Structures are given as structure tokens and as C-alpha cells.
């Protein structure tokens, strides 16, 4: 589908923005509003259309402009989009990027095909386009934008699905159960009785016998089969499940987190939850969050971002106004700290304000 088809959604988002008094809200308020309303406006169309990359980017841009500008024309985006879109416990604000949201929601359609659901739309599409009999084997592009969207989504989500072995009554050669493609396409010289092998025949009393069978398959497949260790039981059929959710169901929440965790900048080592647990108003929490990202607009930070200002502190005219200097070390700040009973404040700041603030928060 072409980009023009999505202009309507963008107009809708823009008209919502125009009627809100963005400047009457503070930043955490705007983040919440953007999260709840802006990113959920396109939710219906996202369940059946694969948004063009440009449409996704425009939507994301509208959201982040609203968060940082409100109604003004221009303002500095103090914390990057990649950081804002992280979950709150990993140092973001939990804003959902359009591309991931789109993939997640379309995945629900993929899931009904994976499960061979009995829904009418699934039967119609399957009758018309499901030529190979299994969705994982479909590769061909068609004239249907919905079917193309499904295949594109499957391409992204493929690794998240796993074939759960129940009774093991599936042929091991013709089903894409472990490598997402049937082994029969990549092997040669299979004897007729090997061709009848079912998945359950690879285990005897819970022990893998795949090496004894001398099957003509690659070493990687053998290892991944040996790692499975299924308990084969005759009352449950083999089925596809969503790997990342222990109860096997496809839920938008679990898929979204799975997609996020595959982004390489997600590191769960830093602790951020303490900010959101502080018994303080959201605006204070937000500014502490900004301090921990080293991005409140002090003179030093502005200078670093090539704004045409000098980096010296406007209060003491001595040192550069870095963030620790501005809120802790400046003589004016030290006076306030000692006024509140903190006599030794130099321990509060060091290179990494985030971890130090957490430590000092815990100490007190």
C-alpha cells in the first residue's frame, strides 16, 4: 500500500494535537497523553496493514515533537528517541515506536494462521493464498496487500514461534518443525523407512537416539534436537506456540517485549525503577530521569550540543556548568544543601549520576 493511503491517519493525529493545549501540560503529562492517545489512534489499521516505513517515521516524529515542543515550533529534544522508547524500568518512558506496534498487532493475524484458526477471514485468505499448506513455507508475493503484510510480519516474528512436541505424531521430514523449513528439501539419500520417521521416534524413554539413527542431517539440527528433551504424551497434539510466553499464547504485550529485547541497545544492567518508586510528583521524577540521562539544558550541555553559549556557570562565573556542578557543586547549591543538613555533598556526584543517585538514595 502506498504512503498516501495513510495520510488520513496522520491528519487524525494532527487534528487531535491541534485541539489539545499542549503548552498547558508539563512534559510527563504530554508523555502520558502521547502514550495513551496518540500511539493508539492508528491501532485499528495497524492490525491489517503493513505501514510503509515513511508513515511510521512520520507518526514517530509527531509523537516526539509533541512530547518536547507542546505547541511551540521548535524545541530541543533533550533525550533521544531510542532512549524514550525503552521500557520505563530500563531507563526510557515506554513510548511505543510505530514500527514495533504495527508488527506486534499484525502478528495477531499471523498467529491465527499459525494456529489454523476457524475465523471466516482466516478461512477465506487461507483458501485463496495458502498454497503450501503451512504458513511458514509461503514465500511468494501476491496481489493482496493484507496477505503480503502477513508474510512480512511473519518474516520478523518467525524466530519467536516454536513447535511444541506433544504426542510427536508429526513426520520429521515434511514439517518445518525445527528449522522453519522441511528437512526433506535439504537432504538426499533417505531410505524409505527413514522417510516414515515421526518426531516421537527420535526419543526412547526420554533419551535422544538421533545420533544412533545415522540420519543425513546437519550437525546443528542434531544439537538443537538433542536440546529439546520433550516429554512425549499421547493425549496432546503437536502445536505451534509463542516461545516467549510461558503459557504459549500470542499476546501483544509479550511479543512487543520480545521485539524490544532484540534491539541491541537494551541492556538491563542499569537500574531505573527507583525513580518511578519515589513518592514524588511526576514532574520531579521526570526531571530526575533527565538528570540521570545527563540531559537537562545546563550551559555545559548546551555548549556541548553546539548552541552558541558559553559553558561557564551563570551563577558563580567560575567553572563549567555541568549537571553535577549545576545542582550540587555550585557554591549557591552547596549553601542550600548544607541548609538542609547535607554537609558533605561531594560524595553525591561523580561520573555517572544515575548509579550514584541510586546509591545515595538507598543510603539515606
Amino acid at each position, binding site marked *: 500500500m502506498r504512503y498516501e493511503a495513510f495520510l488520513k491517519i496522520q491528519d487524525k493525529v494532527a487534528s487531535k494535537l491541534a485541539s489539545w493545549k499542549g503548552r498547558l501540560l508539563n512534559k510527563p503529562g504530554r508523555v502520558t497523553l502521547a502514550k495513551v492517545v496518540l500511539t493508539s489512534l492508528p491501532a485499528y489499521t495497524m492490525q491489517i496493514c503493513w505501514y510503509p516505513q515513511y508513515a511510521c517515521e512520520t507518526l514517530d516524529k509527531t509523537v516526539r515533537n509533541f512530547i518536547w515542543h507542546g505547541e511551540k515550533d521548535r524545541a530541543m529534544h533533550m533525550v533521544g528517541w531510542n532512549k524514550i522508547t525503552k521500557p520505563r524500568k530500563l531507563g526510557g518512558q515506554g513510548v511505543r515506536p510505530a514500527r514495533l506496534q504495527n508488527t506486534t498487532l499484525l502478528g495477531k493475524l499471523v498467529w491465527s494462521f499459525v494456529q489454523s484458526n476457524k475465523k471466516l477471514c482466516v478461512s477465506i485468505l487461507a483458501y485463496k493464498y495458502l498454497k503450501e499448506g503451512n504458513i511458514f513455507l509461503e514465500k511468494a508475493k501476491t496481489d493482496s496487500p493484507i496477505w503480503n503484510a502477513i508474510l512480512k510480519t511473519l518474516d520478523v516474528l518467525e524466530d519467536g514461534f516454536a513447535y*511444541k*512436541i*506433544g504426542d510427536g505424531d508429526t513426520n520429521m521430514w515434511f514439517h518445518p518443525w525445527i528449522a522453519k523449513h522441511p528437512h526433506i528439501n535439504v537432504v538426499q539419500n533417505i531410505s524409505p523407512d527413514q522417510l516414515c520417521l515421526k518426531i516421537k521416534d527420535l526419543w526412547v524413554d526420554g533419551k535422544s537416539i538421533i545420533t544412533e539413527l545415522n540420519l543425513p542431517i546437519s550437525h546443528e539440527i542434531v544439537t538443537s534436537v538433542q536440546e529439546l*528433551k*520433550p*516429554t*512425549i*504424551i499421547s*493425549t*496432546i*497434539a503437536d*502445536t505451534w*506456540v*509463542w516461545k516467549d510466553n*510461558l*503459557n*504459549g*499464547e500470542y499476546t501483544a504485550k509479550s511479543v512487543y517485549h520480545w521485539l524490544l529485547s532484540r534491539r541491541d541497545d537494551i541492556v538491563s544492567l542499569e537500574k531505573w525503577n527507583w525513580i518511578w518508586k*519515589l*513518592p*514524588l*510528583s511526576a*514532574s*520531579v*521524577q521526570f*526531571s*530526575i530521569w533527565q*538528570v540521570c540521562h545527563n540531559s*537537562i539544558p545546563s550551559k555545559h550541555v548546551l555548549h556541548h550540543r553546539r548552541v552558541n553559549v558559553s559553558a561557564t556557570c*551563570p*551563577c558563580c562565573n567560575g567553572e563549567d556548568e555541568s549537571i553535577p556542578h*549545576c*545542582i*550540587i557543586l555550585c557554591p*549557591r*547549591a552547596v*549553601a*542550600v*544543601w548544607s*541548609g*538542609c543538613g*547535607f554537609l558533605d555533598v561531594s560524595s*553525591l556526584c561523580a561520573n555517572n549520576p544515575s548509579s550514584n*543517585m541510586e546509591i*545515595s*538514595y*538507598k543510603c*539515606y
Partner: protein
Amino acid sequence: MLLSKIGSIAPIMMWNLWCTRNKFVFDGIQPIVSTTVSAIYAQLQVSQRAFNNIISIALVRPTHEVCWQHGDNDIMVLNVDGSALTNPGKAGYGGLVRNFEGKFQFVFYCSVGLSNILHAEIHALMIGIKLCWKAGYKKLVCFSDSLHVVQLLSKKVSMLHHYANLLELIQMYLVREWNISTHHIFREGNSCADILAKLGVKHSESLVMMHQPLSCLSLALLADATGVSFRT
């Protein structure tokens, strides 16, 4: 109360310092230390009044007296537990069977390799029940400290669940011809199984079953048999 009071003052101070600095830079208002300090304390009081109820509600938790549970006469008691070092990570399980007086029957423990805690807990219950069936007990009561597992077993298993096979296997044992029930118990009443599960994590993936009590269990066994209870 003291902790939350002092803990939230530092962020408020930083916020106020930043505000006064902005007032100075943009409006030219000279910062006065005493005004800032009093503003900080005023804001602290406001937020305390706003959040006080929430904190005190969160802190109040019901307390229980917990001890090892035993059933009626001539019943066997199975305690199982799973343990995982990290999630996901190395996991193992263990369990033991005693009679209603606390007389020791046998222990078992084993590792499940790289897995998660739910897998270990389910595996523990499955192996425990299987061993008891083999031993020919007619009356059995099982205790697991995982409420999740007990809840999963109480209803029909969804075939999509990752451990549907194991759960189904347990349910098949539950409907056999013997007197058996599964219950949840708090961790403190399950201390022997807890020790065994931690042994299981370090062990290899072959099941160990022993009919003599281990020396590391003696204290916990004695505590259970005499009916020591813990307050959680």
C-alpha cells in the same frame, strides 16, 4: 517513615535548585538560600501528605504462622521444591517423603539443566508423585511452595502451555486409583525440600534417590518433626 522522608528530599532539592537557577538565568531573580530551603520543605510536606497513604498501604502485609503440615494418620507427605539461580539459568529440583509423624522415607533431587523456575517446580512435583506411585503408597498429600503450579493443576491445562505435557502427566497421576491431593505451602514450611532443590541445581542431570537422610537435612527435619513454626 524516616527512610522515605530523607530519600525523597534529595530529588526535591535538585529540582528546586534547578528551578531557582532558571529563575536567575531567565528572569534575573537572585536566589536566596533561606527561601529555597523553606520551599523545599514545603514541597516535601506536600508530597508526603499526598503519598503517605499509598506507602502505608503498601507496607502492611498480613503475617502467617507457618510450619510443616502433616495429614491424618497413615498418610504419606511429599514436599517438593524447585530452584533456579537466575531466570533463565541453571535450575534443579528436590523433594522428600515422610509419614504423618515426620518419619523419613526417601529423598530425591536432580538438575533440569538450563531452564526456569516454573519448569523446575513442575518437574519436582511430577517426579515426586511418580516415585510415590512406584513405592506403592495409597494415601498421599503433596505440598509445593509454588502457588502457580497448584493453580495450573486445578484447572484444565491449555495445550499451548510450554509445560502442558508435564502438567497433563501429573493430572493423569492425580486421577489414578489412590488417595492424593496437592496443596500450596509457604516456603518456611517447605525448608527440607528447599535444601534438596539447591542440591539439585549443583547436581548432574541424572536423578538421585536415597533412603537415608542426608546430614545437611538433619536440623530442618528435626524442626519439622517437632513442629517449629515460623512467622512470615
